[in-house]
């Protein structure tokens, strides 16, 4: 698979994982917060597998961050049922996950 395709796959999974994580934070529903945080973890592990397929340089990492932010923004906009506080925590949650999978 080409590097570009891997970037697309990686950012798609990460955007979904982050949407779940952010959803669990802003909806503050104790029973589902745990469940969605767990779902997000599973997806982040999946993204980690995709990430390990390549050696990423600084330019790739910047590119991943840019594409991820765009996809995540879109994912959150589409979900109008998630509280609007979701947009305030995009940057922080994105940085956390990129650090976790060593793409910061």
């Amino acid at each position, binding site marked *: 698979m080409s590097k570009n395709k891997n970037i697309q796959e990686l950012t*798609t*999974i990460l955007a*979904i994982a982050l949407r779940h994580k952010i959803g669990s934070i802003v909806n503050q529903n*104790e029973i589902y917060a745990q469940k*969605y945080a767990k779902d997000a973890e*599973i997806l982040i592990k999946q993204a980690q597998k995709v990430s390990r397929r390549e050696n990423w340089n600084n330019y790739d990492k910047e590119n991943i961050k840019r594409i991820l932010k765009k996809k995540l923004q879109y994912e959150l906009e589409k979900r109008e049922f*998630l509280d609007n506080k979701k947009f305030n925590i995009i940057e922080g949650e994105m940085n956390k996950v990129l650090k976790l999978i060593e793409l910061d």
Partner: protein
Amino acid sequence: MEFEHKVSKGSRFNQIYIPKEMKSVFEVGDIVKVKLLKKKTEIYYSENLLKLEDFKEKLIKEIFSHLSIFPEIKQMFIVGSFLIEKVDYNDIDLIIITDKKQENLEEKIYDYLIKKLQLKFHIIVIPENSFLDLLRVCPLTRSMFYYCISDKKFDLSKNIMLDKNHIKFLLMMPEDLLKITANSRLFYDNIRRLITINQFLENKDLNPVKINVRLKSLLGDYLYSQIKNNEPIDEIVIKRLRENIKENLNKIQKNLKDK
């Protein structure tokens, strides 16, 4: 000298009787100190749950009794596979209801129970108002409490309400599974979730045992146990599961539109 006795109910005050053989030791006017050794614990079954084995009942009483030292707890529930599976349960699901949001109570309870009982617990602490709200609007919560045991009387009210946003929130993961590859257990959980939501929207029974039977008949015994146990599945199977998700999602969307 000491003795142990149960507190009994008196007409004006509750009381502790001095055993006859100690009459000469504990005399009228003597000063004594009374110490609580063990709280009395009652357990209440949800109306659909059959009586559990003595061992399970005793363990639940023990859990409730240990937790009675936490004044923040308003009510406690045991739910999940521990109640409905003979032996095939993973952990003991404990739902704790509090008056208001409590920071770190989950960890405190978990550590305490592990120290006392050395068993695997899954604990969720939830304030009463969120809990009552979820019982009205959430198919998965209602299904979870279909079978439960509590330390206080509890009836799953028939009062339900449709909260489309909550349903959409629950549909996020099944929708995602149409696009991304994930482990097979996630497919199991989410197809179950879709069946439960559909049952709720159609005002039907949310018995989790029947939902499992329905899922089994839909997938067949082999595939059912394969994904329940998170075993690897190939692309053809994933395609079949996605078809199933799509069908259920369409049904739900249609039901939501009609309401």
